[in-house]
C-alpha cells in the first residue's frame, strides 16, 4: 500500500480513472479489496473510499464536483473534517495510481 508523500496535491485538477485501468474486486463485509492489474498492487478500501472511487469510475471530475456528488449521496452538507478526509483519500488514490490527472 502506498502512502502519499507528495503534499502538493492539486485541488483544482480534474482526475479520472485511467481508461486502461482494470480493477479486480474481492472482499468481505468489513472491507473492499482491489487488485489493480496495471500496478500489480493490492489495496484495501473501506466503504467510504470505495464510494469515492466509484464516483471517479463514473467519470472525470475535480474536487468540487466530487464534493457536490458526495453531498447528494449523503443528502446533506459536508463538514470541513469530512472534506479533509476526502482530499486525503483522493490524494492516496493518486499516489496508488488508481486515478490520474486528466
Amino acid at each position, binding site marked *: 500500500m502506498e502512502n502519499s508523500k507528495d503534499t502538493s496535491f492539486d485541488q483544482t485538477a480534474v482526475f479520472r480513472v485511467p481508461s486502461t485501468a482494470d480493477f479486480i474486486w474481492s472482499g*468481505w463485509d468489513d472491507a473492499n479489496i482491489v487488485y489493480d*492489474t496495471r500496478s*500489480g498492487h493490492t489495496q484495501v478500501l473501506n466503504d467510504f473510499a470505495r464510494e469515492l472511487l466509484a464516483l471517479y469510475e463514473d467519470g472525470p471530475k475535480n474536487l468540487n464536483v466530487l464534493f457536490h456528488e458526495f453531498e447528494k449521496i449523503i443528502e446533506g452538507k459536508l463538514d470541513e473534517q469530512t472534506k479533509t478526509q476526502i482530499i486525503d483519500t483522493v490524494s492516496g488514490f493518486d499516489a496508488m495510481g488508481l486515478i490520474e490527472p486528466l
Partner: protein
Amino acid sequence: MAAQSIFHDPENLISLNDQALDNRLAGEGAQLEIGPFTVNISLKFKNIREEFIKIYGDYPYYDAPVIRDNYIKIFGRNFFRTYIRPQAFVDVGMNDEFIPLPARMGMVSLEMGLNWQVASACKQYLMFHAGVVAKDGVGLIMPAASGSGKSTLAAGLSYRGWQLHSDEFGLLDLETEELVPYPRAVSLKNQSIPVMKDWVAAEHDNYLDYFTEEYEGTPKGTICYMRPPAASIEKMHVRTRPNVVILPIFDPTSKPQIRPITKTMAFFRTVMSSANYGDIGSDAFRAISNLIYNSAVCEIIYPSLEEAVKLVEKFVSENTEPRDV
C-alpha cells in the same frame, strides 16, 4: 482428492539402498523427487552424504535421466578445501554466489541451496511461507513469520496423524487450487530441537534416526533437520483443497486460546506470507480470494506444542465437515 502430478513417472522411480544412493551422490548425482520438483543432487563430502542419506534415504529417486527442475552440487574448490580445511561451495546454477560454509555444516548448505532455488525460481505454484498439513480432506495453511513456531507446529501435527505438506513452503496449484505437498526435511531451530525430539520419541523408540546432528553456530543459531514421517513421504503426490487458515502465535506465558479474525485480515496475512504473489499477479489474487472465501479462519495463541495441537484439532473439528477421501 488425489490428483497425480502430471510429470510424476512411477515406472522410472526406484528406491535406493544406502550404498547405491551414496554412489550416485558422489558421482553424477542422484535425481531426488520431492512433491512436484525433481532435483539432481551431487555431494562431494562424505559427511554430508551420510547426513543426507539419513534424512532422504527413503525418498523416491529417478533411475533413468529425467528433466529436472534444479540441480545442486556441493563441493570443495580444491584438495585443501575438500580434505584439509573443508569448505562447502554450493552451485545451484543460478548465477548466485553463496558464501561457503564449513563442510561440517554440510546439510545447512544443502537445505539453504534448495530453499533459495525454490524461493527464487518457483512461480508456477503460488507459494506461502507457511506450515501446511492435511488430514481427511482438510487442507490447513498456517502462514506466519519466522519464530512463530509454525515449523514446529507443522512438524508436530505430522507426527500426530496429519500429512506434512511442508513446514515452510506451502504450494498451491493455480489451476486446480489444490495444495501441493512438498515434504522436505523439517528445519528446526534452537529451542524447538529438544521439543521435537521428545515429541518424536513418544512415538518411535529409534527417534534419533529421524534427526541429523545439531549444527551449532550457523547464521540462524543451532539448526537440526528432521525427516518427515514415512506416511507423508509416501503421500507426496496426494493433494488437498485448502479450507482452514490458522495464524499461530507462540507465547510461553499465555493461556491457550482461539481468537476470531476477519477474513480480510486472513486474506492479507496470507498475501503477506506469499513470496511470489507479486510476480504471479491477478491469478494469485483470485486464488487467495477463493481460498479465504472457502476457509474457516482464526488465530491461536499457544504456550506449548501439546496445547497448539489441541487448539488446531478443536478448531478444525468445529469448523469443517468430516469428509471421506
